[in-house]
């Protein structure tokens, strides 16, 4: 344990000094991971429905499934343990506990998810999950503290369990049973009647869910105001969440990919999604329907509620985690998300994030090498017509930079795609060619352009410099 603490203390300095030139992905603490798997397995065996409910059997199944889901995700290595970010999260959580003794802290388990989805959520039995994807958007510790307070409020107000109970009441209650029975019995107008049944239930669920969010904001603010964190950042957090899908700059593909021997062509970014049906475009869902289906109320409404109900203090910035350290932690999260997306086989997302980070760190070995690895796997999937498994569909994406990346993936021919990996890596002037990951990437890039002599050469270089290197098994 002492060793882990020692490593953790050293980690910030090593990571931050490296990030300009290189990056080494986090190695998660396996022991903590195994300990948690055991805890959840035990928890799952002991699921008890404490209160009197006619849906005891259903509730037991739901809770068991919920625990099993976490166990599976733990086994799939979807969380990070024993890292600087975990330490910072725990520090913030401890500060909240200190100022709010009413929170039953022994029941809370804060997990750091590897997912790139910007989200934080409470599972209802004490587990709160914060995704790396959310951290990349936050600006300081107070914002993160508000997110944690909001989730603690959900736990404290028992929102998840009450919601499950309510849904069962509505879905499996006597009235629902009788309606479904009547639909099943009658051969005619089945779908219309079923639509109406589902619509009513859905609207009710979404309405309750939005109410819960407002409540959690409110109690979260109460928790936050008792701490030394800046409560004015709560509104800022919601403002950030409101525009989370937008990038603050346009990608410069020329800057990232064009080299003396290779020119990135703007035509590759053109959309092929133009319909031949002109004005006969898809009918959008009615605004009323969209609003009714939202689980979260608009951020504007949430901000308004906070503004109306709380007087924000003129407290100075908290020093729990300095802004500089927080920003560095955020950068760390952005690098980790690339790694996570790549290993979760979300290759188009990984490629998008790599290009984004390369604008800031053009000479980072890890990013340049991962770019080649990413193109290599996408190339392979494209060749085997398996691309649909690994990339998102442009039509469901709102971020214009990500759309451009997806268009390039679709438009580039296999040959151009190979060149896209090969030339930037080969001709970028300030890369450290002795880095293990760069040698490995050079090997892959020469394989892509089918230069077997160069490929063998890189293989020999790797084997002589890194005889027991971590990419050894990838050579063929």
């Amino acid at each position: 344990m002492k060793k882990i603490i020692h490593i953790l203390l050293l980690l910030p300095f090593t990571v931050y000094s490296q990030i300009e030139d290189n990056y080494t992905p986090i190695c998660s603490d396996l022991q903590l991971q195994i300990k948690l798997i055991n805890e959840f397995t035990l928890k799952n065996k002991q699921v008890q429905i404490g209160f009197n409910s006619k849906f005891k059997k259903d509730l037991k199944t739901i809770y068991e499934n919920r625990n099993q889901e976490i166990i599976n995700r733990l086994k799939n290595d979807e969380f990070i343990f024993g890292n600087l970010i975990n330490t910072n999260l725990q520090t913030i959580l401890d500060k909240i506990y200190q100022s709010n003794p009413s929170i039953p802290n022994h029941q809370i388990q804060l997990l750091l998810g590897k997912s790139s989805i910007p989200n934080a959520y409470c599972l209802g039995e004490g587990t709160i999950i914060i995704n790396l994807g959310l951290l990349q958007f936050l600006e300081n510790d107070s914002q993160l503290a508000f997110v944690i307070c909001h989730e603690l409020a959900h736990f404290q107000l028992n929102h998840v369990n009450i919601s499950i109970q309510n849904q069962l009441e509505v879905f499996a209650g006597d009235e629902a049973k009788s309606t479904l029975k009547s639909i099943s019995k009658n051969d005619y107008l089945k779908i219309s009647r079923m639509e109406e049944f589902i619509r009513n239930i859905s609207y009710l669920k979404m309405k309750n869910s939005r109410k819960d969010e407002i409540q959690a904001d409110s109690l979260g603010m109460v928790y936050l105001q008792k701490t030394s964190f800046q409560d004015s950042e709560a509104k800022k957090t919601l403002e950030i969440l409101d525009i989370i899908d937008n990038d603050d700059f346009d990608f410069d593909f020329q800057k990232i990919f064009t080299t003396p021997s290779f020119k990135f062509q703007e035509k590759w970014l053109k959309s092929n999604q133009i319909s031949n049906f002109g004005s006969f475009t898809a009918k959008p869902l009615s605004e009323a329907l969209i609003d009714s289906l939202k689980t979260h109320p608009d951020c504007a409404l949430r901000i308004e509620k906070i503004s109306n109900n709380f007087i924000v203090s003129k407290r100075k910035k908290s020093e729990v985690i300095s802004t500089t350290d927080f920003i560095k932690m955020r950068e760390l999260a952005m690098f980790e998300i690339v790694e996570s997306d790549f290993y979760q086989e979300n290759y188009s997302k990984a490629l998008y994030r790599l290009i984004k980070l390369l604008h800031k760190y053009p000479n980072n070995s890890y990013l340049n090498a991962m770019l080649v690895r990413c193109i290599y796997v996408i190339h392979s999937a494209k060749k085997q017509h398996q691309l649909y498994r690994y990339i998102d569909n442009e039509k469901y994406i709102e971020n214009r930079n990500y759309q451009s990346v997806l268009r390039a993936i679709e438009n580039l021919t296999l040959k151009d795609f190979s060149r896209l990996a090969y030339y930037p890596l080969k001709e970028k002037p300030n890369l450290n060619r002795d880095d293990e990951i760069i040698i490995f990437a050079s090997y892959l890039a020469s394989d892509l352009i089918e230069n077997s002599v160069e490929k063998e050469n890189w293989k020999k270089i790797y084997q002589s410099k890194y005889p027991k290197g971590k990419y050894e098994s990838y050579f063929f």
Partner: protein
Amino acid sequence: MNHIFFKIKWVVIFFCAVVTHYSVAQRKIIEKNSTITLRNQGTIFNEQKLVGYYQFYEFQKIDNDNIEYLIKILDHNLNEVFSEKFIEFRIFELKEVSFNNQSFLFKFDSNSFTIGSRRFYIYDQSKKLRRVEFPNGKHEKLWNNQQLVNLPDNIDRSLYSIPDKGFLHFGNIKPKTLLLSLIDSKGAVLWENEEPDGKNEYRTVHVLATHKTKIICLKNVISEYGTYNGQFGNNITQFITIYDIQTGKKENEVKLEDENYKYQVLSNEINTNSTQEILGVFYGKNEKIDNAHAQGLFSANISSDGILTNVKRTTHSDYLRKSLPVANYKTEEEIKSLYFHKVFRVKDKIFAVAENFWLQNNSGKLALRLIGANTSMYDFTMKDIFIFRLNNDFTFEKLDVFEKEKTKFNLPAGYGLFGLPKLANIVKRDNAFDYLFTQIDENENQFIVNHRSAEKEGEVDTYSVKSIIYNSGTFSNDMIRLNTEESILLVPMPSAKFGNVLLSGYVKGEKRIEMRIEKINY
């Protein structure tokens, strides 16, 4: 894909929103009662250009006789354009959809005797689907012919769009009359033109191109229809017929025949010049074109006055033997058994795509016949894809043969008596040739020939779409596997935008249809 009934789970956004927690028993009831059925799906063209796809669903029963149907229109990228529900008789099938920039025209078919057998619906700028009423009711009394004529890709339709003007419709009405009509973008009939058929004769019309004032059509006059002789090959003559677009009056008609040869058109590329080039194959003067091997390829021009000029021919016997390896093609019958799917021009070259076939004895089927099975002793066997390349002056340049595994088509009992070329036409009618479609991008000097392929990989049967890509003088290949996942066997749709193949399949476990566009690597 037409006429296959698939069950599909009705997935709407509010269904997805509630799947988090609820009892398993309730979930099953909901799934069972929220299932709609796909009746058929197909392609939508604007002139000769593929613009999208339609899906026709049986949504729910209204009463004993009526069903609420759902039509979903997708663009060529599979983005939903709109979906509309309407109530109609329970026996109802969507046959064709056409789009002309202003509106969509839908042609339905019903085998019910209680209603007219055909119905038309229109979806125009008002964004509402409504039934088209024809004052004289002729359009509702059409009948379908089973024609055994080899036609170019995508023109075997009865609805053709004239952009921003209307829709041409061709059909046969009783008694023995060809009905041509122009329906405007709001569903009103602008003109109707009837051409009576002769005894034992009927005719079909397919649009090759529309100009500002003219419609250039390929007309098949099929005689000996329904006679004893007709079983062994109908006497088919092709005409290029030019109609006035304003009145529907026939302006000119050219018989595709001269003193020595009969010609069959296998090209459908729109030519915007005043002279329309036609390409295809030719036969001997006394041969029946649905029951004879083509003797070679031809090109000709049709002037705006309807005169056949500049006819050029190249005969297979001059070069086929020399171009084919003797080991693979031993007999003359094997060499000349070629079914031509398409003849087209790319830049200054002319290409013809053909598929090699023959009849193979199947001793196993003899045993089946003895125990009463309704099967022929012969298998119709398809083999390699041939691509002929001709120079601009119509001289033979090269023959590229693309080998593929043999594919067999089971013939019903007695079909072995028909001539081999007639059998090939039957196979074509049943869409059973391996050839799928050709995509041409003349600006880029490219074309892609797509065909099916079935191979054995060890013990496993693998199915794929193979693409032969021609790019500025050289060929390359690509392959898309159709059975990569155990639960799905994807089926290629009959057309897709250039450089892509549209695949569709039924995911059994999830009770849903998977449709996706795969880009061909080239």
